């Protein structure tokens, strides 16, 4: 019974199968029903094209973070404002608002850690098979690891993210509602 798989799927073989199926189906209602079942489109074939989410829903959590940073720290106002006309002292005062508010958002919703625990400026060893996600090499990259280098920036890694779930009833595009005082 061990036939090479090609022979059953060759054109002639398929013609043969088709023909005998045709003849048997004509004679046997039972066989015909079985063939009809095979011919019915399978559920996987029937699967509709995935609905594409509108971009604002696809990026809802990103928009939610922006909204949080605006609500607590007025970050969007700050970034959208033209700084040219203001003195450093004025910008500094506003920066306190932004810093205090955004810092609160950070401490509440994100747990951040340096990617490398060593002190910046320290000479460190980058072993063979180092984690290229967490470590980016710069400067004179020659030869094979292990490398020795100076830690210029310790990097940041989010170890926990706890963004509040926002109701689906809320339009995520609205980062800050207009305020109208009556």
């Amino acid at each position, binding site marked *: 019974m061990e036939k090479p798989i090609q022979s059953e799927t060759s054109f002639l073989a398929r013609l043969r199968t088709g023909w005998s199926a045709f003849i048997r189906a004509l004679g046997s209602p039972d066989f015909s029903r079985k063939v009809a079942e095979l011919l019915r489109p399978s559920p996987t074939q029937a699967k509709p094209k995935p609905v594409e989410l509108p971009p604002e829903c696809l990026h809802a959590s990103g928009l939610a973070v922006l909204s949080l940073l605006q*609500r607590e720290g*007025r970050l969007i*106002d*700050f970034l*959208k*404002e033209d*700084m040219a006309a*203001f003195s450093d002292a*004025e*910008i500094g*005062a*506003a920066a*306190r*608002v*932004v810093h*205090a508010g955004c810092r609160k958002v950070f401490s509440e919703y994100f747990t951040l850690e340096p990617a490398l625990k060593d002190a910046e400026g320290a000479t460190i060893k980058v072993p063979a098979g180092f984690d290229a996600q967490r470590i980016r090499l710069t400067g004179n990259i020659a030869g094979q690891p292990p490398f020795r280098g100076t830690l210029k920036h310790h990097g940041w890694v989010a170890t926990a993210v706890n963004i*509040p*779930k*926002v*109701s*689906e*009833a*809320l*339009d995520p595009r609205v980062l800050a*509602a207009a*305020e109208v005082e009556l």
Partner: protein
Amino acid sequence: MSTYSIGIDLGTTNSAVSYFKLAEAEARGSAQTMLGIPQITSVGTVEERLLLPSFLYLPNAEEFPAGTLALPWDKKRKDAVVGEFARSHGSKVPMRLVASAKSWLCHAGVDRLSAILPWQAPEDVQRVSPLDASAGYLAHLREAWDHQFPDDALDKQDVVLTVPASFDAAARDLTLKAAQQAGLPNITLIEEPQAAFYAWIEQMGDGFRKQVKPGDVVLVVDVGGGTTDFSLIAVTSKDGDVALTRVAVGDHILLGGDNMDLALAHTVNQRLAAEGKKLDTWQFNALTFACRQAKEQLFADAKLKKAPLVVPGRSSSLVGGTIKAELSRDELTSVLTDGFFPKSAVTDLPQVARRTGLAQMALPYAQDAGVTRHLAAFLTRQARAMATAHDAPVKVEGRAFVHPTAVLFNGGAFKASTLKDRVIEVLNDWLAADGGQPAKELEGAELDLAVARGAAYYGWVRHGHGLRIRGGTARAYYVGVETAMPAVPGMEPPVKALCVAPFGMEEGTQADVPTQEFGLVVGEHTRFRFFASSLRRDDRVGVMLDDVIGNDELEEVAPIETTLPTQNGNEGNLVPVNLQAVVTEIGTLELRCLEKGGPGKWKLELNVRMKE
């Protein structure tokens, strides 16, 4: 059978819930479990917090997008918001915000069952009663619990609800009613300073016996968001172990940590106004918030001379609209430390301004912001009361005031150690001048959550574990009896006061008033004036006081009333009755009329609708 003991701190500005598995054989130590309370923190956002701000916002029907006020357990919620968003948004829309419901609940000058809040709200705003608002907070806490512990519904658990020690019988009764309305029929009440002390005991474990010894008198100073509450707890020895007795409580003082931040904001605002910078309501709120932060910064670092205050502009122009100011250490000291905790003598009593009839309608805020002067008044008045009492639990002979040996602080205001130090300093000055030993601070108290935690611990103690604080009622109660005299125009007939419940009545006990007989007319409404005293420790049941009006040891509380039901056409009959007072197991006072020589028994209700 309940699984948990649950302590609910229903605060003036914040509420919290702590829970304790009753099957535990050991106290929790310092790991006192708290319930995370989901609440709306911003439109369409629900987050868990350990504190539920006790604020209720009543939105306009069109104000927020449909579905954005939903809670995890109530997807259709749209007519009321409780918690953080209620507070933050409500500060911009004060006419729709219910705040300090608890203070209204104990304000005898208004009808506490009618829809009067938000106070002075315009016609079209839906209003609620102080009772409804309190019930609303409790219902939110119940739903939050049930959502997280679906197999142990809160109404099946041992719930301990905290009330200020200064709450009188009527306010306690209303708190109980609020709990019932919120779907919590079975609760026990505990006084907040006691709960704070329980929390401290639990945290210390057995080590607390090293810190307090028989003979000690612990003063609990509880400055909450909106109220200040004092209690004295005496440590004695009994059968070889220490025993704790709450011996006195202070009056209700509407003065709290929120007043302090406001005072700072007003001070800075005046200076800004002098510079021509005018703040609107929104900016003033931001200034208050900034003052709180600057205060914390200055208190945390003694070397700082000043802290910056930044009030952002309200428009999208952040840099252009920002107003800058500073809070200096001198200002902080003069406004807060000296303003609220002045170095006063023990003889300096709080100033009481004359009130006009109209002013009494709004909340009766303390007229004197000096917490230390209120403390002086409490300690000196209690010393006078104990000096004449036959079995005073604390020795006061020859002393101008009750000498505490230790102080336990409670309330967020005392996160600033400067303020604790000031209270200790002032108290120790008084003690030194009066020939006493300095008092020490009982350290390690958790200031924000202690009351809820201590309440949960107390629920466990009631099951026979640990040490229980005794004390009974902190007041004696009296019924007003009008004396028969010929009517004289313009003169009120003198009123005598009949003691119906003595000071220190224990929970689960009753007192009969056999001597005095009253005639009640069946079918007619009977009303008694009702008085309380936190100072008269020696009056026994049946004692009659002659001079009620103008007696500053007695305070009139809500009147009590009843209507004897008619049966078989006995309407108009005169029924002789005696009075009976019962302190229930749950910590409320009940008064009954017992038919003399008959089976009749009627409950007298405290009328909290209005003091007349």
